[in-house]
């Protein structure tokens, strides 16, 4: 456990108490402002109507509500997109580092188009224009749009990671007479991946949040379920705060998992 290595846990840190005090003061201030704002709004809060959209008990027993069912769809879409994002990202990064002009050009054009146009328009384009031609369902249109979008950013992260590997590592591999594939496989990528883990986490978090946009093409994900409940009940603020809290919980959990991975990979450092 890394905690035991810290000397500050042994003695009572006075500065930490002062710090906590300051922190509480700032938080208190923010909460005071928020309550002031909600008071002025004159909004009729009805939080008691929210839990039944998360889970229900009835004569059939326990069942998940529409929000949690939507979360399941969000998980499916982000899960598949995340794998595709990594695949597209690393392929594009490697294509950009080859000597072939055509490969470099293709990767560059893909990246510039994707990074310089809004995701919402890409989703609409893929769903309303490409999907009918290819006979693709809304689900796959969403997955493809998301993974293409995030993949463009991931490729730059991978490229930065690969470039950052010390020149000596490349020279050592070449002096051993290694071909490009085993060189990347055994020497470059294992080191690069460890370095790109933190920025890749924020990319994965972005993916989870950006997946909310697929609700616009009538996929019943978490956001779309929220929009539908909102349209029926007008519990606007309660529903959207709940959904924001769910996204927050998911992305915090994701960051937590990566942090554990990072610590494990650091502990086996040579």
């Amino acid at each position: 456990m890394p905690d035991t290595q810290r000397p500050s846990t042994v003695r009572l840190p006075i500065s930490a108490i002062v710090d906590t005090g300051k922190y509480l003061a700032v938080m208190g201030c923010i909460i005071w402002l928020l309550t002031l704002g909600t008071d002025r709004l004159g909004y009729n809060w009805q939080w008691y109507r929210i839990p039944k959209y998360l889970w229900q008990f009835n004569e059939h027993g326990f069942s998940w509500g529409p929000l949690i069912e939507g979360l399941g769809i969000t998980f499916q879409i982000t899960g598949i997109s995340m794998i595709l994002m990594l695949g597209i990202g690393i392929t594009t990064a490697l294509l950009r580092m080859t000597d072939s002009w055509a490969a470099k050009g293709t990767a560059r054009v893909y990246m510039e188009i994707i990074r310089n146009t809004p995701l919402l328009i890409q989703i609409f384009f893929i769903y309303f224009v490409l999907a009918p031609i290819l006979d693709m369902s809304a689900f796959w249109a969403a997955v493809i749009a998301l993974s293409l979008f995030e993949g463009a950013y991931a490729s730059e992260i991978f490229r930065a990671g690969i470039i950052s590997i010390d020149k000596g590592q490349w020279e050592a591999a070449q002096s051993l007479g290694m071909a490009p594939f085993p060189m990347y496989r055994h020497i470059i990528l294992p080191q690069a991946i460890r370095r790109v883990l933190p920025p890749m986490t924020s990319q994965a978090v972005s993916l989870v949040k950006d997946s909310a946009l697929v609700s616009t093409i009538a996929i019943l994900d978490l956001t779309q379920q929220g929009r539908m409940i909102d349209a029926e009940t007008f519990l606007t603020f309660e529903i959207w705060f709940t959904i924001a809290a769910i996204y927050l919980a998911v992305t915090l959990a994701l960051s937590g998992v990566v942090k554990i991975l990072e610590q494990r990979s650091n502990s086996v450092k040579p």
Partner: protein
Amino acid sequence: MKTHRFTTILSIVLLFAFIFGCSQQPSQQKTDTSAQSQVSQLDTILKRGVLKVGFDTFKPWAMKDKSGNYIGFEIEVAKRLAADMGVDVEFVPTKWSGIIPALLTGKFDIIIGGMSITPQRNLKVNFSIPYEYTGMSVIASKKLAAGRTMASEFNNPATTVAVRLGTTAAEITKNFLPQAKILFFDEESQTIQELLNERVHAVVASNPLPLNLAKEYPDKLYLPFKEDFTREPISFAIRKGDFDYLNWLNNWVLVTMSTGWLQNRYEYWFYTNDWENQIQ
């Protein structure tokens, strides 16, 4: 590491404390709003000299003409309403699915947007007496759903229907076609695009949109039912608890209807095409 974890947990706890703390607010808030409602919104509008109107574009209720100005039945109604009040009118275009929250938080004074009265909406806003009625209709794809003339033929899991989110069409489709698969889109244009792409069997929308679509794409689309299957009252929506304002609106509708102006304008926008060359 430990303090970091502690502060994270603390902030989450505080966040939740704040959120659930809000549930205890209503009793305190009620006194606030009732104090506010002593001053009628009507006075506020008159003092300001501007009536702010919330709406969303629905053909032919409200649309943009070639020079970018809004025209349509609702726009004329709003202009006449403001003129009778003796104030200017300011149009605040708002996405349909967020139009009631925008009214509640004071972004505008009134919704004049072809809004039909529903009990659920009425729990959050006050409605005036209806100034018009509208009917729902179905427009279907000739390729996917040829020759269907009964609602039961659409009510099966193999049928997909597209509707605009937050409209009464969305609720009505759930009631009339509970077995059909329903897709919810944000814009009317997206539902029509889905229908023209032959990915849904039908679209449910308020007339005259289905009627116009059937005329526009005679070889692709058709109207399965001869008559509208609902008749819904269209009203002005305002924030709750302002009876001076509501009384004024009700009597405006009564007077304007008795002079025949409302019916005349309705005929013009819904049953003639004289305005077609004005829009883009």
